[in-house]
């Protein structure tokens, strides 16, 4: 029978011997197995007929090459955003005019029926308007973005993304599969958090959960796209407008990826200390995407799912906005009072009180940040749709003193701030820990404040 002492002696000896090995010993052990496998396989298996390198391998040589891999990825992403930005404008405007026409008709009907003004206001200019804005702003980009994204997924490109990014995540002490869950986060952060189930190590899974928020989800893209169009795209003319706007969005996404890696790195060296674990990633063969499957997955499973969730949160938020905007104290609305109260904090980070108020109201769903801001700015007591981006720019720049700094910091704040309520609840459900859910909300929020404050200070 052994004694624990003997066992401890062995373990201590092993620890001491480990020091004599080179630091890359673990990789070396794995590599020597791979080398041996290659050697044995080469001897046993022979390609008899003279076959050219097959198509998949040739494509993979390019898209996963150390030099071209990342640029190709960035270009593909930029193309997807450009198509989304350029394609969503017109249908968004059409949809908005249709839905707001319905609002006018509905409100007219209520008035004609003799209902009190506040019922009409609450139902049509509050709840309904919230819904209409969210649907018209979100549906067209989603209906373009999700099929494109699903197509890349169906094609088999996403595992290549994970392959390209693996070395970065490993260096950050995180799991390579985090690249996949990050990609899911572009669709919806809550979905991204659920997707971290593919990561087996609890430590790395937690890192992936806590940092998923740093890629902008579909609810935040409209804000980013709007700001990029008004403040970046407008510096250029013609086709360059949308290209520059898409470029700015890609830049923001790039910053998001950098923060994902940096925070993962920080967590892996502090509260979630540990080494990255090895994993095998099989690059599946490229497949011709199935049109019906793409349409079904992207439109039914994703677009409608996300839209439904947005609708569920937008309706009550619309009601809150209407109430805050219409109850007045001392001649100013409650919304204005709160905004004034938040103003010093907002100014310190290059924004203002109205933006912060919008973010508080938008905790359930990030989609309604911009309409809330505009409502308070214009004092109309209801969410406002402006007919063109030019009008919007006039309101923001001329009337409310927005500068490029405001736009940049708002984009950064939108990228880095706390996740929406659904995501926070999902973090709680996945980790079963109130502590990690709180960290998941407060860590990004403090980073957002810190970064925007630094930018505002050195601007």
């Amino acid at each position, binding site marked *: 029978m052994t004694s624990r002492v003997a066992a401890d002696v062995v373990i201590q000896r092993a620890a001491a011997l480990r020091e004599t*090995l080179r630091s890359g010993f673990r990789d070396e052990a794995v590599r020597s197995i791979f080398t041996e496998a290659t050697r044995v396989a080469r001897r*046993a298996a022979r390609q008899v007929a003279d076959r050219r390198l097959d198509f998949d391998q040739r494509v993979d040589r390019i898209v996963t090459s150390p030099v071209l891999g990342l640029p190709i990825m960035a270009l593909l992403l930029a193309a997807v955003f450009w198509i989304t930005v350029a394609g969503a404008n017109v249908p968004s405007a059409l949809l908005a005019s249709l839905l707001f026409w319905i609002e006018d008709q509905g409100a007219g009907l209520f008035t004609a029926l003799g209902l009190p003004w506040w019922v009409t206001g609450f139902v049509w200019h509050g709840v309904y308007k919230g819904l209409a804005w969210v649907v018209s702003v979100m549906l067209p980009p989603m209906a373009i973005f999700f099929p494109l994204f699903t197509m890349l997924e169906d094609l088999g490109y996403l595992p290549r993304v994970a392959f390209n990014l693996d070395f970065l995540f490993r260096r950050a002490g995180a799991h390579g599969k985090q690249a996949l869950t990050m990609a899911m986060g572009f669709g919806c952060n809550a979905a991204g958090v659920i997707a971290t189930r593919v990561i087996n190590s609890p430590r790395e899974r937690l890192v992936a959960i806590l940092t998923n928020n740093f890629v902008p989800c579909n609810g935040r893209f409209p804000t980013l796209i709007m700001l990029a169009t008004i403040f970046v795209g407008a510096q250029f003319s013609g086709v360059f407008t949308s290209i520059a706007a898409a470029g700015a969005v890609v830049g923001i996404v790039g910053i998001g990826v950098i923060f994902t890696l940096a925070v993962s790195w920080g967590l892996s060296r502090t509260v979630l200390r540990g080494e990255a674990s090895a994993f095998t990633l099989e690059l599946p063969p490229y497949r011709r995407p199935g049109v019906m499957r793409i349409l079904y997955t992207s439109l039914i499973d994703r677009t409608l799912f996300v839209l439904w969730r947005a609708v569920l949160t937008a309706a009550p938020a619309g009601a809150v906005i209407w109430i805050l905007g219409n109850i007045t104290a001392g001649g100013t609305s409650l919304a204005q009072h709160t905004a004034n109260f938040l103003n010093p904090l907002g100014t310190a980070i290059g924004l203002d009180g109205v933006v912060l108020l919008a973010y508080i109201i938008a905790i359930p769903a990030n989609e309604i940040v911009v309409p809330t801001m505009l409502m308070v700015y214009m004092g109309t007591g209801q969410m406002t749709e402006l007919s063109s981006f030019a009008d919007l720019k006039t309101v923001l720049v001329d009337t409310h003193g927005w500068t490029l700094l405001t736009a940049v910091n708002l984009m950064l704040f939108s990228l880095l701030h706390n996740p929406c309520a659904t995501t926070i609840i999902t973090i709680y459900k996945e980790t079963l820990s109130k502590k990690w859910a709180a960290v998941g909300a407060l860590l990004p929020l403090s980073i957002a404040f810190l970064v925007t404050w630094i930018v505002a200070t050195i601007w």
Partner: protein
Amino acid sequence: MTTHACDSCAATAELERMGVKLDRFDRVVALAGNPNTGKSTLFNALTGLRQHTGNWPGKTVTRAEGGFEFNKVRYKLVDLPGTYSLLSASHDEEVARDFLLFGRPDVTVVVVDATALERNLNLVLQVLEITDRAVVAVNLMDEARRKSIDVDVRRLSRDLGVPAVGVVARTGDGLHALLEAIDGVASGATTTKPARVTGTPEFQRAVSQLVPLIEAAAPGVPNARWIAIRLLDGDAQVEDALRTGRLATLAAEQQHGAERFSRKIALEGAQ
């Protein structure tokens, strides 16, 4: 591939699929392999369609087992989770590794994909680090032929130091030869000399210094070398098994002819 009079008639006369009738068996066979290598097809070809499924103890990893009889010997076949390696910390790999290490199957059949031999051999080499009672089933031989890949199974067998048999699990091709190879290794008629990765001189020195210590701490332990490698890697689970005496108990039982640990764990699923 060895030719046999009845190679293509799937089961052959000597094989009796026992499905879930697992109350009595003489030997335990573990089935390992990468995902998508036709492991389940082979499992079904050997045991019939009925199988016993459940979870591995404490894990949400599916465990399937079934039985078959060949040459009057009753075998219990345990399907391990499909994994690419036994190195990292995923639940699947942990389950597969623990079964090989503590369950001590009489034979471990590693199913490999003939069209992706290089990738599949990584797992084979890692299994051979743990056990020398292994048989390599080179599956999907038909697909390899279609892709004009010529697999020299005899050379593979020589290089790996354990029997390798070409099979087509889907049609039952080569099953008889596989069963004979399993029988040979299980009964001890076939001697194996598995290929082992050597590593750098410092690494070898470290391993050879640890092996005697491990053998002293857990007398009779059969894979001291593998345990040494895991300890050098700082594997907390193996450290734990050593500390709690799980390894030593196992070795002692083996020496005193107590009921084989593999039987117990194979029957009950866990310790």
